[in-house]
């Protein structure tokens, strides 16, 4: 028999979006019982790694209209305009709330909150706490969440299944990593805030835990994954590790140089105009890729591949220490380079997923009682390309919205019969028990994962071709079959990280399937999806979202309208 616990709202994920959702629900109704389930202690969530900042208008020279326009243009007109409008309106309120809760935002001399420039943003609207913004936001949210007595945490619990019966979601099955037991955590509403899935690719800024679990959980229950072909390559990752060097380096005035020491974003036409280093990420990653392909990349002893240089030397030590101390720490520790004295070698690195669980503007999915927010969701704020610093704010705005709407929903929802849900959790416990230490065809988790990584890098890189994407589709299908032959060596119930890795690999294979399936169908170039065989945007045929549905016979796709109405789609040129 599985252990059963009962709550009102069950939140899966303790990152920026999950914690914000928990606080919103708790503030609305202190009587609610809220479960916060996370596979790592909340302060380990990958929000912690965000460096550069969070966007919201703050200055007299800025307006909601400008933030909205920058965002829709950045999205290559695939963002839903009602969502963008709501987002820019809520953004300043959310960052102010965080200020009241103690976030140590960097300050101007007069005591007001300081803002910095960011890619694709037409003025300084990115709030920052030096260059550890995600860290400070996450710790502020986590510490603040502790003052609410009605948030019950399930730390180091890995959710393996949503409990769904007849199109209603009423909880989750979660593996207690410490004991190896699967529990049923029931609630009248469930909010997925499990973050992105960068570990599907080999060279990424994402941490080990970013395996797209929530996307897979929803996908398996029949919810569509939306706009999965759009994955963001950040222009500046460190060699070898892929550790991020924030865009704030360029916001503060850093240059990108090729091996001839030339600022190629200025000397050549890459579509970013006078924005130069502050162009949007998709364009700058393509520019670096082209510079390297043209033989103007920088070589580094002992490292494969070619790089560009990110030069901060002219900013001077004082500014680097005041604004970018973490960048200096990371460059020294992980690239053996002190940016005060040398340029930092970098290259484009997989960073962020624009796509995710399809939700409406209220963070609701197609299943009753199931909500999603943050990077795991696709509420359609980011369209085909996210602007840097919009996503931390997105976690707050739509995390809060999910918390509020879930709370509203449960007022009218009856618990109903819990029997079918508990039975599902029992079956899930049996499935997980069977997976632990199972002996099959001898495939290894690490090897299957590596092959998936390679297939995804080759098929869904900065530039894509029909042939390479089609190849990735069939490779991923074959690798999914190989997963069935994975054998596991660890049969212990206690903190079995091999079992976790296997569960995560299965989730990543779902994400990989949806990404490749959506990518091959989009025969145009839009935002981060740059097709070498279809080089331009095609609004006549492709101004729509893509949906991918799971089915036993392979993925099925559909189209979904983009919400327009405020800004007319136009050529995206800076």
């Amino acid at each position: 028999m599985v252990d059963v616990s009962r709550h009102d709202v069950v939140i899966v994920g303790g990152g920026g979006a999950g914690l914000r959702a928990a606080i919103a629900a708790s503030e609305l109704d202190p009587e609610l019982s809220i479960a916060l389930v996370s596979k790592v202690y909340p302060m380990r969530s990958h929000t912690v790694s965000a460096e550069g900042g969070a966007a919201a208008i703050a200055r007299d020279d800025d307006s909601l209209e400008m933030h909205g326009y920058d965002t829709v243009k950045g999205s290559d007109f695939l963002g839903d305009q009602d969502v963008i409008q709501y987002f820019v309106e809520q953004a300043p309120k959310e960052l102010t709330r965080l200020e009241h809760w103690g976030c140590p935002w960097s300050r101007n001399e007069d005591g007001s909150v300081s803002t910095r420039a960011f890619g694709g943003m037409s003025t300084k609207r990115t709030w920052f706490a030096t260059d550890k913004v995600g860290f400070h936001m996450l710790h502020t949210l986590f510490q603040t969440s502790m003052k609410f007595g009605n948030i019950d945490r399930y730390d180091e619990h890995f959710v393996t299944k949503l409990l769904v019966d007849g199109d209603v979601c009423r909880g989750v099955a979660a593996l207690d990593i410490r004991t190896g037991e699967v529990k049923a955590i029931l609630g009248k509403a469930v909010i997925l805030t499990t973050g992105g899935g960068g570990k599907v690719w080999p060279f990424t800024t994402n941490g080990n835990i970013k395996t797209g679990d929530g996307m897979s959980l929803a996908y398996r229950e029949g919810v569509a994954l939306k706009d999965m072909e759009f994955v963001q390559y950040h222009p500046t990752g460190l060699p070898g590790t892929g550790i991020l060097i924030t865009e704030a380096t360029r916001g503060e005035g850093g240059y990108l140089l090729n091996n001839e020491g030339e600022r190629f974003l200025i000397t050549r036409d890459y579509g970013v105009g006078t924005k130069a280093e502050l162009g949007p990420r998709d364009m700058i990653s393509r520019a670096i890729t082209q510079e390297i392909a043209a033989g103007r990349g920088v070589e580094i002893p002992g490292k494969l591949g070619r790089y560009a240089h990110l030069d901060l030397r002219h900013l001077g030590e004082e500014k680097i220490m005041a604004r970018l101390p973490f960048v200096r720490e990371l460059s020294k520790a992980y690239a053996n380079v002190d940016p005060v004295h040398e340029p930092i070698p970098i290259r484009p690195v997989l960073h962020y997923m624009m796509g995710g669980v399809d939700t409406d503007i209220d963070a609701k999915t197609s299943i009753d009682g199931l909500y999603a927010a943050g990077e795991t969701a696709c509420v359609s704020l980011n369209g085909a390309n996210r602007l840097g610093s919009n996503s931390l704010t997105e976690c707050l705005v739509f995390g809060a919205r999910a918390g509020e709407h879930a709370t509203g929903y449960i007022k009218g929802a009856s618990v109903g019969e819990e029997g079918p849900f508990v039975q599902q959790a029992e079956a899930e416990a049996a499935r997980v028990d069977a997976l632990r230490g199972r002996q099959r065809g001898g495939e290894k988790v690490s090897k299957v994962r590596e092959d998936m990584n390679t297939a995804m890098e080759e098929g869904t890189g900065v530039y894509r071709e029909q042939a390479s994407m089609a190849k990735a589709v069939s490779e991923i299908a074959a690798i999914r079959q190989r997963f069935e032959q994975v054998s596991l060596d660890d049969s212990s119930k206690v903190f079995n990280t091999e079992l976790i890795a296997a569960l995560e690999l299965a989730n990543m294979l779902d994400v990989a399937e949806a990404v490749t399936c959506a990518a091959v169908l989009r025969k145009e170039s839009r935002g981060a999806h740059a097709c070498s065989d279809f080089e331009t945007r095609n609004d006549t045929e492709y101004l729509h979202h893509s949906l991918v549905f799971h089915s036993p016979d392979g993925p099925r796709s559909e189209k979904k309208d983009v919400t327009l109405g405020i800004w007319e789609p136009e050529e995206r040129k800076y």
Partner: protein
Amino acid sequence: MSQKLKKTFIVTRFDPDKDEVPKTQTYEIEVEPDWKILDALNHIKDTVDPTLSHRWSCRMAVCGSCGMTVNGEPKLTCKDPMSDYGDTIEVAPLANFPVVRDLVVELEGFMERFQEVKPWIMVAKERAVEEGTTQQSPDELADFKQFSMCINCMLCYAACPVVSNEPDFIGPAALALGHRYNQDSRDEGAHVRNEIFRGEGGVFSCSFANECSEVCPKSVNPSGAIQQAKLGNVIDWATSFVVKRGGDVS
């Protein structure tokens, strides 16, 4: 590519399902010279022994998951360069914590301590969002910024001689965090936290060994925070006889 190096890793293993006491296991592996200790452990897990259990995520020294004992010292393994060590490297779980399995330690005790210091802004009256952001000068920010940099990696608990002797000691990181809020110009809860600081296991349990600040990978200086808090508490305690301190805060 760079020349690989041969290393011997002696890793502490413990599986409560099977073992009465911890044992060690030796792995001979080849490493890249620029690897960190964590890279070697991941290499062992992926290619030699998938049963090895350790925590990690960000591999960029910010999530705080990967603290372990390396050659007897508490280290953040994702930032700890292989080049600092010789041919043989011993990796064990952090000291002063119960072991869950292999290199994974029990954090529940710390999580309770953490909550105990009330690490959130306490004010008599909540500010409304419409009032906008609070003014805080760069100097006021500097009063607490350093103490807000803790990644909860637990190295300071592993290094602290008081933690190992006094089970009630709130400990360096949690005390530094409480002090962080006391120092924040937006907070009005210092008198509440100071009461906790003066109590059992509070700041006066600290013997000022300073080990915590020496091992801290983020220069938080918990020992400095505790000394400041001690001073603040002597004053707070003295003035409490003269004026009634603070109002109701939550």
